[in-house]
């Protein structure tokens, strides 16, 4: 039976919109922007949690690196580092759609239908080449 990774509703909007948005945060004290979100304190300046303001970050950026993973219970899959236009460099699953992606490729977020834990269909945020 194929294992699927469940959706992460705290990380992004998965309402089926064409342009999914990432739930990042930005420190109101020093301006440090980050994703994934956390509410413990600012890594850059130590500001308290209440100063870490939610910031919606467009799912658009540039590929820094990507690799195919062959040795893993969920393999094969591709993961990459994407420098979001909003600032943070994030790690995400990549849908290569058969193409070889090189660093510098423009990327966009997309929602991919997968099977949830209880068999229901859920949406998982992945990245694809922007021109695909």
């Amino acid at each position, binding site marked *: 039976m194929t294992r699927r990774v469940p959706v992460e509703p705290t990380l992004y909007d998965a309402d089926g919109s064409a342009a999914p948005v990432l739930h990042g945060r930005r420190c109101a004290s020093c301006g440090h922007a980050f994703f994934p979100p956390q509410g413990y304190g600012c*890594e850059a300046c130590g500001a308290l949690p209440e100063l870490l303001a939610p910031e919606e970050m467009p799912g658009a950026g540039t590929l820094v690196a990507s690799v195919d993973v062959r040795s893993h219970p969920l393999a094969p899959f591709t993961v990459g580092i994407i420098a979001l236009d909003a600032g943070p460099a994030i790690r995400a699953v990549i849908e290569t759609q058969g193409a070889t992606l090189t660093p510098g490729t423009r990327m966009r977020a997309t929602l991919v239908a997968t099977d949830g834990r209880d068999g229901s269909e859920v949406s998982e945020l992945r990245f694809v080449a922007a021109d695909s």
Partner: protein
Amino acid sequence: MGAALRDLRPVHVVGVGLHRYQRGSDTTFVTLGLTAVRGALTDAGLDWPEVEAAYTGTALLGFAVGRTMLRYLGATGIPMVQVENASASGSTAFRMACLDVATGISDIAVAIGVDKPEMPRLAPARAGLRDLVGSRMLPVTHFALLADEYMHRYGVTPEQVALVAVKNHRNGARNPFAHRQKERTLDDVLGEDPLAGVLTRLQCCPIGEGAAAVIVASDSAVERLGLNRSRSVQVLSSVLASERVYPGAANWDAELTRETTACALAEAGIGTADLDVIEVHDAFSIEELIYLEAMGVCGQGEAAALLTDGAWDIGGRCAVSPSGGLLSMGHPIGPTGVGQVVEITRQLRGEAGDRQHPGARTGLAHMVGVGAVCAVHVLRTAE
């Protein structure tokens, strides 16, 4: 601003010992550790009652490791501390032993590394954070991503990255304490399917069991006990640092190593050109290239071409991981950082046998631990 190690009392490595790094076996950690400590005592010409403090680097064994093992040397009542700092646990234990002697709290202290291949409970996974990749991001995948970025940035090929593993297995084949003691050709290294990106199995370190021990002493202890000064090696600097926030998509692993090494070299009062031997954290082949450049041993993007030219071979410009490194000597976690100091000490004494780098006088040990932390020590032969 606090003091540097060199502002305090001089610290000398006077004894080193190892238990071979190997696949997990029925050998208890007690036997592993005692073998290394007894080896170091014999090497130093010391008896256990002379040792005044024991720091045990271990990450996987659970609590109360130190005395469970060391009581069988004769229970002398000395302070014993376990040191956990991920892959840098052993390096950190060595630093603690050095600081004990440098500050004058002890005249003689021992750093031990011991572990067996148990699955650790990783604190970062229990911080209550979610991300987009979850369990997909294993260490091999993280470093495969750094390799992909590096190869594209500098026009380096997968074969050039794999040559790190060829060199380090060649060194490890000459090390009777290495986990992997077999030379490997480029075809051997690239002959298996990659686990992630370009990284094949032989470009990933084996994690097994083993032990390492290093005894450090003050000048007064060396004098008082008549230890062999010509075989002692001075610890010029000890720097332990943790990751900061680096802007944009910078390679954070490289930045941490850059900062830590620069500090360790400055505190030692030397430059990279003075380094004859480097033991580097080569858990994955690509790391050696990235870290050599971050250390400033060569320019950005130059490490792979220099590797091909033999610059990092024993007998080359600077011997890099003459022990075989993590890739071939192995990475049993707790022992690894202590074992690096063992290798550098042997190299600087001229006692490394057919792994000897000619004329080695100055060496640097570098470890990184997930989290991330970085430890760098600079050692120099007796004048």
